[in-house]
């Protein structure tokens, strides 16, 4: 079980590094999809089955396909991908490393919080998550539909072409 955890973690970290360092946008998307599939494996390991399925459907199924569509629509290739200067890139890596160290040092100072509920391994099952979602979080769930509607209106508004007559 520990071995599975380390394998999934290694896949995730390596593919995340490829997302950052690989130049071609298509490769970035592919590696991000690999990273997300490994993350779904982590969810299954944590026995959060509902989240694993939703993660696969929403992230790898919808969001990454949207990214792929946009990349193909914009016809991006390696030649026109802009790159930062060498100094900025080195500084970015150093900043990321320092950020990692700071976060790690901060989490070392934490203390154990005792669980409020007796341990069960069944909280991630669809039935339990659904009960919580529709009892305690019903209002936010309904409000998220308004969020989606406004996001859709915003996307359409950004995406539509300006009328050439208005520009004159």
């Amino acid at each position, binding site marked *: 079980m*520990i071995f599975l955890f380390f394998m999934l973690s290694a896949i995730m970290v390596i593919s995340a590094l490829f997302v950052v360092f690989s130049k071609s946008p298509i490769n970035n998307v592919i590696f991000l999809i690999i*990273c997300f599939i490994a993350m779904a494996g982590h969810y299954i390991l*944590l026995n959060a089955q509902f989240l694993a399925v939703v993660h696969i459907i929403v992230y790898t199924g919808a969001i990454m396909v949207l990214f792929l569509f946009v990349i193909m629509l*914009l016809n991006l290739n390696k030649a026109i991908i802009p790159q930062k200067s060498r100094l900025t890139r080195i500084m970015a*890596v150093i900043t990321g490393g320092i950020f990692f160290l700071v*976060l790690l040092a901060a989490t070392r100072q934490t203390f154990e919080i005792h669980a409020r509920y007796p341990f069960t391994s069944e909280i*991630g099952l669809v039935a339990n998550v659904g009960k919580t979602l529709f009892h305690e979080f019903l209002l936010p769930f309904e409000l998220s539909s308004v969020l989606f509607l406004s996001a859709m209106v915003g*996307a359409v508004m950004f*995406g539509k072409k300006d009328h050439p007559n208005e520009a004159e």
Partner: protein
Amino acid sequence: MNQITSAIQIIPLEYYIVLSVTLFSIGVMGILFRRNIIAILMCLELMFNSVNLLLTAFSAYHSDPAGQVFVFFIMIVAAAEVAVGLSIVVMMKRNVESVDINLLNRLKW
């Protein structure tokens, strides 16, 4: 089934914290590293997901389903954010013929 549910008791919670911190730092590094706006959006997704993983881990270890519902809401917000963000990318490509964020540096001030 029993083997999977016992994984929570075998793997310490600290491992998940370290993994999430690593992924989050890689996301931060990517945002500073890249100039392509689509790659920056992808690094943003990476950071969203590291937080999601940490919330799920805490929720599983503390047996509280509210954490997983919260992850579900984060996914909802991320989906809406990506739809709007990518339409901004398309609009930017149409207006300035590039996906380079340095062309938009007037937004800084």
